[in-house]
């Protein structure tokens, strides 16, 4: 699974980091989310799906 955050759509709600703190990191300057690698480690797929579902802006997408 790969995960992608659209930086133009993310507004820093930080809920993805609540869903999957190991995957979604928050920038120090504005709290907008980023990932260090698009590849989702095994076992993290479900929490990443929860992050997709909870993003208020719909900024996160996944490819299986």
């Amino acid at each position, binding site marked *: 699974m790969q995960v992608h955050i659209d930086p133009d759509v993310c507004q820093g*709600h930080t809920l993805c*980091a609540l869903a999957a703190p190991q995957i979604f990191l928050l920038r120090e*300057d*504005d709290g907008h989310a980023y990932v260090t690698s698009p590849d989702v480690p095994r076992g993290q797929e479900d929490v990443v799906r929860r992050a997709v579902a*909870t*993003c208020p802006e719909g900024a996160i997408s996944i490819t299986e």
Partner: protein
Amino acid sequence: MATDDRTLVDFDQHSLTYKAGFPQISHELRSQCPVAWTEAYGGYWVITGRDVIGEMAKHPDLLSNDHDPTGARRGYEGIAIPSPKGGTNRGGFIEMDPPEQLEYRHVLNPYLSPVAIEQWRPMVAELSHACIDGVVRSGRLDFVDDLANIVPAVLTMGMLGFPLADWTIYCEPAHAMVYTPPHSPDFPRVLDQAIQMSGKLAEEMGRARTNPRPGMLKALIDAQDTGASFVDEDILGTLTLLIGGGFDTTTSLTAHALTWLDSRPEQRQALLDDPNLLDTATEEFVRFATPAQGGGRTITQDCQIGGHSFRSGDRVWMAYGLANHDPQAFEEPDEIVLDRFPNRHAGFGLGVHRCIGSNLARMTFKTMLSVVLERLKDYRLEEGGAVRYEDIGTINGYKHLPATFSPGTPKGQPLAQVMAEWESRLYAGSTTA
């Protein structure tokens, strides 16, 4: 005028009908149309569908926040419906559009990011404990007056770089501005109070130029000095915005949560025991109560969004509080489910105007709530004592929330001393005179 096929609804977020009917009122409105038209205050669209409001928030080019009371640009009326008459200033960067708005947020974001707010957590905890210490022997408190008004206000002072004790100067005007309905006979007095507050803020700005203290005001002035196109009026508007946003919303959120928890002792204990539950519950309280109920916009050109047609100049009310009860997005939307997650609520707004203080609000709320749950374990609200805002259409808040509990003993220093100690820590090396 409504001359086309728009759905007409009888709606005014400042009315007593709205206050009495929130949040269930949203279902009737949405079933008529998630994008409906009211003739109140000269007419505006009311957006109550979670999907369509999210789509609209993605188009700041089509939905303007601009407030232009002097008619220098397009004469738009900003985020308040109705727009306040008589003023000449806009309300800080929330009444601007990108890219100008982003320039302000760029300066302020580093003070409000999740990392940045962590440094304030110890102060918020000490202030909360000191507030409880002040009442704990008596067995009685007003959650608003004795705690939830004080902590966010003192914190906001610290973040701005203001003397902490000055929170009392701003507290009453800031709250009165949002709970006094525009049709109230008291409104002119409240507006006058707000103008006096602006005078005080202008003094503070002058002082920040000669004796700067660390904080957000200094950051704005430094940015102005180093080339940002900020004018003094907009810095003043921004200070008013940060005070309004910093004081009232977290107070309201805390009052709502304590009201809901009044008759639920098991849930109180669960929140104390489980930090993860406190995290999801915080989002759920924000969704359910939506302290900042919505915001006005102006359509910049004839357009279609989410299948709905709008005309240039139309006014729009982004009813985030109502969209947060859309059953298509939230199962059992009128229930508080502490572990609700995912929870794609719009309680902090959506799009480029997402509440800049959302991370601060969460931390302050969680800290105050935890201190109450830990120290006033058996609190019960006084029957009939809660007083909600007369007008909840701007901020869904409480004026008073009295409660009783088994008396205890103070744990730390009195509030004045806690504030004095933090003041010297924050402003060591700065002149406070």
